[in-house]
């Protein structure tokens, strides 16, 4: 989650759900929390019962809106304009938390002279390279910095060659950055921010978002009235914010609002990132992502990081917590390769695969469709239903040599060769598909032990309740067995490339008649130990860069402290404080509320009695409070770093964001973001309207796949696809349906795919409640039932009326209940930071009745031509945008 990582230092929710009960105002935006997180929503209800104001901003009136004090309808894809409007309001009306902003954010930092804003360049920042379609962050830096300021929640920028300056470790001069604490300097972040959002006025918000001006002002005022010394407000978001071509910037925008209001690191404040299902947080901490190693350590890139020293140089920071980077990577390598990792062989660094380019999900599937991928493991996922352009996903699967699907049921992905629409239609014959498909029955969570890392970074251990039926095994068993067999296969090889497998430690103890590996042994390895005696370390501060410690994920270090399974702790809430530090275990170091040093003022006293959380105990010379202090425990508030200090010494007593190179919350991101230092309103790739603010229509750094099997609509106002559509989930189903559409008790509650439309649109498009409807995009056509409801409202943008429709995405062609897959309608497009698709805002057409012939662009359906007199419009200014790709889809 770089949006949070770049702004605050760690890519996880800044708070915990139980703390929402302390909020005085909660804004839920980009999330349908009551439906998608009903259990966590109890804390929102608790806050409401205690008198908090609940605001829900969403294109649809949902079960969350039904509980809200204020519901604000807005156009899907316009959230940055709304949040930018809030920033504008805060700054113009001086409603920001002055002391917090001056001391705890980078507002006073002065930027280089050559930085240019979107106001100067009609929607572009300085540093844009039209050749590659990418930004370079050099002009976004603080004045006087050597090279790029290291970002804590970085992605590629951080490890790019040359990003570190000329042969020096970055961030050396961070203490020398000129700052203007009066916030008056024209180039200080505060003034830059003011200028960037100067045009995001309530009128403009209303015009772009379709939100009545008074309603917007009511939200802004409520939020301000409930923030400050005595009161705090929280934001909750989920994939309604992330799944956009500029998604990460949505979260950045909220981070700016919360920093300005002084709501980060304080009880009842924060930004709650609601994760889609069990252990999604865990799967980015110990990642299933191609570009990260455990604990947000970046994967090395092939050309620039062949040697460990070079790799460390590219990623280390001279200041802040990432100065500890060498300790974490060396300990990780020791965990991977054990005795085979020595100082002489650079701890086996050369065995780690190196990235050669973009291997994100969409790139991989596009390569697959072009016949460049041989084999594919699909575990715990059903991409044919759950991922974008399902037909293109299936086309990719057809071109594989082998496919392994491990799941509870025969999902659509496992059955793509047998019952997919194009197979039933006759476009594809099963006998022509060469892919060898292996189905591995998987154990459910009740049939295996292990941890979940939930939405609030909390690890909770679950025990095995029953044995898995038949041949079903846990993912851990499967991978352990796979590793064992690979090691056996390559045991006698003398080739250097096979040394990585030979050197890998793979000595997990097994138990039971099925010889299943012990999950607790894995947890122990993740926690880390001293190599000499195998004793678990108590936390990441004990890790060393001399090979004397091994640790599978530094961020989780401490989860097996004292040889105790910390996530398995279940002390009842009534036997401990409300923070419940002895229930499970949260990373980092069991802190529940991050950056909590900010809950105290400059001198270390609570901002107010009402919002007391962590404070400085001068007598004991330590930070103390309700939670584990998120600060160097004995560093007094008065401590100031000196010029020339390095590493953790740079963190002053007033630097609550200690993961950051400068210890401050980043209003302005001098590095780390691929698409600009400040969130800027860009339209979705398919929009009903042109960008009202800039000549640049869409995110200039976005990724596109311009292929025949992935056609896009006109950039805006496409007469063929006049309606805005947003996709979502229902309480009654689980994502792509593998865990719910096979259960009668869940399937009966939401048996069929439907489209939600307003009565006005129903009249216009001649749709009947309960009747049938066909939904079209250039990617395909699907059939569904119609729900006509006043929960969907047409919006007014200036003089125009814009209709929005909603489509849940749970259905497919296997299971107890079937239906067309909504994601067959979505194209491949990606945000440049996390390669996420734009499934929350695109356009479509609706026709009454059942008209689908299951045609898909991925299987040769040609898009309709634009009507006569209508011409294509550009998504970019002249010379801007993703570079032309070599022609693909050779058929």
């Amino acid at each position: 989650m770089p949006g949070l990582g770049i702004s605050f230092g760690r890519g996880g929710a800044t708070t915990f759900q139980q703390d929402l009960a302390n909020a005085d105002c909660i804004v839920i935006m980009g999330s349908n929390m009551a439906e998608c997180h009903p259990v966590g929503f109890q804390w929102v209800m608790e806050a409401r019962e205690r008198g908090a104001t609940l605001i829900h901003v969403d294109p649809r009136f949902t079960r969350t809106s039904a509980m809200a004090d204020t519901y604000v309808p807005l156009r899907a894809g316009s959230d940055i304009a709304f949040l930018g409007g809030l920033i504008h309001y805060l700054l113009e009306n001086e409603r920001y938390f002055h002391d917090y902003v001056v001391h705890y954010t980078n507002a006073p930092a002065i930027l280089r002279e050559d930085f240019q804003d979107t106001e100067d360049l009609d929607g572009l920042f300085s540093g844009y390279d039209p050749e590659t379609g990418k930004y370079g962050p050099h002009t976004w830096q603080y004045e006087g910095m050597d090279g790029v300021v290291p970002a804590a929640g970085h992605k590629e920028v951080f490890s790019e060659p040359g990003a570190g300056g000329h042969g020096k470790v970055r961030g050396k001069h961070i203490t020398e950055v000129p700052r203007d604490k009066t916030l008056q300097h024209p180039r200080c972040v505060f003034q830059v921010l003011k200028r960037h959002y100067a045009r995001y006025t309530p009128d403009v918000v209303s015009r772009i978002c379709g939100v009545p001006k008074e309603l917007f002002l009511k939200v802004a005022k409520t939020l301000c009235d409930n923030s400050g010394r005595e009161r705090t407000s929280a934001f909750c978001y989920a994939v309604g914010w992330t799944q956009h071509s500029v998604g990460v910037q949505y979260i950045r925008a909220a981070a700016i609002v919360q920093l300005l209001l002084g709501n980060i690191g304080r009880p009842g404040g924060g930004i709650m990132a609601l994760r889609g299902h069990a252990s999604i947080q865990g799967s980015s901490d110990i990642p299933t992502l191609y570009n990260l190693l455990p604990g947000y350590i970046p994967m090395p890139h092939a050309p620039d990081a062949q040697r460990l020293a070079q790799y460390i140089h590219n990623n280390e920071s001279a200041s802040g917590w990432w100065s500890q980077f060498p300790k974490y990577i060396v300990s990780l390598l020791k965990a991977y390769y054990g005795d085979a990792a020595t100082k002489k062989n650079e701890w086996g660094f050369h065995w780690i695969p190196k990235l050669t380019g973009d291997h994100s999900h969409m790139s991989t599937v596009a390569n697959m469709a072009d016949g460049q991928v041989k084999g594919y493991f699909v575990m715990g996922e059903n991409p044919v239903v759950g991922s974008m352009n399902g037909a293109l996903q299936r086309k990719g699967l057809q071109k594989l040599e082998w496919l392994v699907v491990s799941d509870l049921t025969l999902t659509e992905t496992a059955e793509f060769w047998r019952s997919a629409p194009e197979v039933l239609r006759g476009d594809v014959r099963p006998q022509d598909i060469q892919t060898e498909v292996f189905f591995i029955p998987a154990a459910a969570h009740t049939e295996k032990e292990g941890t979940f890392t939930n939405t609030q970074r909390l690890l909770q251990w679950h025990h095995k309740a029953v044995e898995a039926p038949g041949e079903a095994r846990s993912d851990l068993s499967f991978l352990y067995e796979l590793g064992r067999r690979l090691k056996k296969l390559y045991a006698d090889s003398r080739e250097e490339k096979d040394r990585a497998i030979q050197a890998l430690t793979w000595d997990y103890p097994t138990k039971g008649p099925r010889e299943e590996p012990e999950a607790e042994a894995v947890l122990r390895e993740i926690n880390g130990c001293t190599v000499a005696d195998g004793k678990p370390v108590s936390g990441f501060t004990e890790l060393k860069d001399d090979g004397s410690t091994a640790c599978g994920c530094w961020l989780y270090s401490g989860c097996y402290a004292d040889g105790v399974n910390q996530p398995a702790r279940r002390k009842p809430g009534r036997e401990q404080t409300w923070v419940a530090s002895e229930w499970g275990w949260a990373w980092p170091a069991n802190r529940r509320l991050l950056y909590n040093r900010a809950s105290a003022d400059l001198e270390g006293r609570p901002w107010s009695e009402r919002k007391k959380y962590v404070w400085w105990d001068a007598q004991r010379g330590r930070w103390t409070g309700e939670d584990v202090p998120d600060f160097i425990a004995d560093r007094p508030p008065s401590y100031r770093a000196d010029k020339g200090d390095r590493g953790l010494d740079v963190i002053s007593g007033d630097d609550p964001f200690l993961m950051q190179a400068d210890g401050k919350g980043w209003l302005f991101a001098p590095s780390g973001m691929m698409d600009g230092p400040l969130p800027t309103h860009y339209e979705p790739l398919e929009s009903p309207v042109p960008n009202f603010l800039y000549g640049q229509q869409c995110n200039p750094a976005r990724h596109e796949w311009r292929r025949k099997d992935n056609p896009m609509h006109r950039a805006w106002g496409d007469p063929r696809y006049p309606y805005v559509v947003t996709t979502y989930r229902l309480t009654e189903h689980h994502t792509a349906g593998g865990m719910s559409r096979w259960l009668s008790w869940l399937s009966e509650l939401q048996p069929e795919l439907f489209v939600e439309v307003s009565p006005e649109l129903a009249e216009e498009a001649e749709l009947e409640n309960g009747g049938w409807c066909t939904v079209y995009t250039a990617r395909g056509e699907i059939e569904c039932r119609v729900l006509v409801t006043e929960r969907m409202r047409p919006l007014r943008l200036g003089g125009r009326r814009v209709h929005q429709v909603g489509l849940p995405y749970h259905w497919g062609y296997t299971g107890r209940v079937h239906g067309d897959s909504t994601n067959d309608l979505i194209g491949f497009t990606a945000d440049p930071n996390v390669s996420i698709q734009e499934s929350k805002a695109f356009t479509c057409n609706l026709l009454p009745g059942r008209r689908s012939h299951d045609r898909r662009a991925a299987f040769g359906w040609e898009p309709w031509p634009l009507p006569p007199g209508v011409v294509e419009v550009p998504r970019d200014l002249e010379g801007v945008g993703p570079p032309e790709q070599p022609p693909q889809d050779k058929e």
Partner: protein
Amino acid sequence: MGQKGFFTDTTLCIGCKACEVACKQWNQLPDDGFQLTGMSYDNTGHLGSSTWRHVAFVERPVPLPTQTVGLLDFSWLMASDVCKHCQRAGCLEACPTGAIIRTEFDTVYVQPDVCNGCGYCVAACPFGVVDRREDDGRAWKCTLCYDRLGEDMTPACAKACPTASIQFGDVDELRERAQRRVEQLHEKGLEQAYLYGADAENQPGTGGLNAFFLLVDKPEVYNLPPDPVVPTMKGREAWVSAGWGALGMAVVALGAVLLGREVVRG
């Protein structure tokens, strides 16, 4: 033991249907089929032999006074319905076999091994709760988790409810809590809040409900009867009326006979 029951506070219901699923799982009830009804998010329709908890979704063109909704007057009400375990239970009083009993928890329970499927209870329930299952013909309804209460466990639906919309406990205590809740909501400006069936005074037709509700609109809006009356409640009046009717008919018959005789004689 004491009187056990539910207080369902509909202002806290988020419509997640966890109660429906928990009920079906604990009681191992079959599904109701897989049809989209087109009635908001409600696809199980109503209580029946295989649905013992049912969440109603009411989309209404009326705003809640405590809510600001952009663009139009609207609110979405959700309410989890269940067997009311009436003080005067029509089903129990109509049951000719003694299959329906009042338990030690003051709940109303159908003993499946005694029920002969006559269906009298179905007609006798003023709420339409009891229903016969087509495959076995017997009558089924919420047991208030009799098998859990015996083990001192909370009924499955209340246990699963994430927002305390369904509260389980001693009816006396629940009534007090509910009354306080109504007052609290009134203070907040939700003056429409009221209790449905909390006691005999509140609902004479049933003698009060062990499973009562907090509502914010008329009962009909939630598909509840506005003035439910257990048929046996009017038993005495019915017998008296029938008696008068019989007497009247006897008089008429006698008169006809006597009069007829005179005509013949004439």
